[in-house]
């Protein structure tokens, strides 16, 4: 028998069977997952659970960006690391765990923090980006490069007992098009630097950031399996893809009696620095460092991605 007549191997049918029989996935959704290249920026409290479920679902390529090493204080929430991996690079620790869970995807380690200098060369290799970082400067940078390279961005954050999630730039469109907002459309001005609290300073309950990371994986699998970022699908079914759904932000408060709430955000902002037709942003200005993200966000100490 010619194995090549089957789009997936026998091992893949067995491994992914339980999700392939879900009607919204199916064989087409599984093949889209296998073709997808996903980038997770930040191998911490959000990145660990997001990566576990995205790798488990069988994406083709999974890249991880992080310049940090594993510390004891990470382990209550960063569930892909381990006590024997303290002082390992987080990207290496995470990829070792992911390979054990699912050896099929190609894993790519980017053992450095995301920066204006490396962002273009890293992000352009992928179809979909997850922002799992820990500071405003990286959030603006990641949103900007996703607009310039036309990538959809799944951005989540958490602190103490609360979490937030937004899917940005869906469908992925160039500056000047009408579509879903970028991070700057929603937050045109960064918060005053002295009001920004990291998980290191403010604290975080492990499964609170965990639930937000898992929700990033839910969104990633929905977006990939539905063909929403698949350029060939867009050509095939352009009628379906023109309807713009409103962009929602998911809010989570563990101590509230109504712990989840979805609120409706604006679409793209006329005059947005990054995504409007009057955009002042270019790959050249970004990579040359003429947009100073750290200064823009008023940071005086070096930024640190948890």
């Amino acid at each position, binding site marked *: 028998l010619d194995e090549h007549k089957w789009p997936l191997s026998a091992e893949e049918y067995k491994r992914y069977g339980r999700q392939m029989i879900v009607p919204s996935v199916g064989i087409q959704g599984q093949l889209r997952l296998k073709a997808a290249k996903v980038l997770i920026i930040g191998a911490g409290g959000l990145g660990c659970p997001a990566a576990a479920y995205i790798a488990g679902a069988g994406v083709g390529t999974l890249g991880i960006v992080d310049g940090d090493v594993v510390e004891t204080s990470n382990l209550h929430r960063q569930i892909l690391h381990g006590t024997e991996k303290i002082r390992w690079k987080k990207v290496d620790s995470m990829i070792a765990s992911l390979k054990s869970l699912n050896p099929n995807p190609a894993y790519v380690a980017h053992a450095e923090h995301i920066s204006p200098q490396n962002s273009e060369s890293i992000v352009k290799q992928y179809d979909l980006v997850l922002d799992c970082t820990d500071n405003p400067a990286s959030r603006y940078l990641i949103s900007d490069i996703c607009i310039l390279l036309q990538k959809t961005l799944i951005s989540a954050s958490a*602190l103490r007992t*609360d979490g937030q999630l937004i899917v940005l730039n869906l469908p992925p469109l160039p500056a000047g098009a009408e579509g879903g907002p970028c991070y700057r459309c*929603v937050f045109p*001005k960064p918060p*005053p630097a002295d009001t920004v609290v990291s998980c290191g300073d403010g604290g975080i309950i492990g499964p609170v950031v965990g639930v937000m990371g898992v929700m990033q994986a839910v969104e990633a699998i929905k977006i990939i399996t539905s063909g929403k970022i698949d350029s060939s699908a867009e050509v095939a079914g352009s009628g379906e893809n023109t309807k713009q759904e409103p962009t929602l932000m998911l809010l989570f408060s563990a101590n509230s009696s109504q712990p989840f*709430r979805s609120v409706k955000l604006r679409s793209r902002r006329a005059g947005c620095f990054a995504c409007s037709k009057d955009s002042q942003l270019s790959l050249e200005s970004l990579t040359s460092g003429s947009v100073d993200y750290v200064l823009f966000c008023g940071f005086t100490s070096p930024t640190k991605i948890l």
Partner: protein
Amino acid sequence: MASEDKFNLVVEFSGGLELLFSGRRKLTISVPIKDNEGQAVTVGWLVHYLCNEVMEDSRKNMFVLDGHVCPGILVLINDADWELEGEASYALQPNDNVLFVSTLHGG
């Protein structure tokens, strides 16, 4: 002021902003139908009312900065970004829900 000259709103704080309001996540607030100048009360009026009359914390500039809601705080009127509703000029209606959310950056 007679009670028929007032109506009720629900005001909520989330994302840690409740810590600036004595830990309260949800308040029911009675507001006048017209402000001192006889105009319909707006969300802009509400922001200053909350800052001046309700907030006990002294860190007022973590909520209102230079006369505007601090960058990084989203304002949602009935679960929609206030920019969809006319921002600070939105005229409040009885039983409106106004949610202030502090943006989080941790991960």
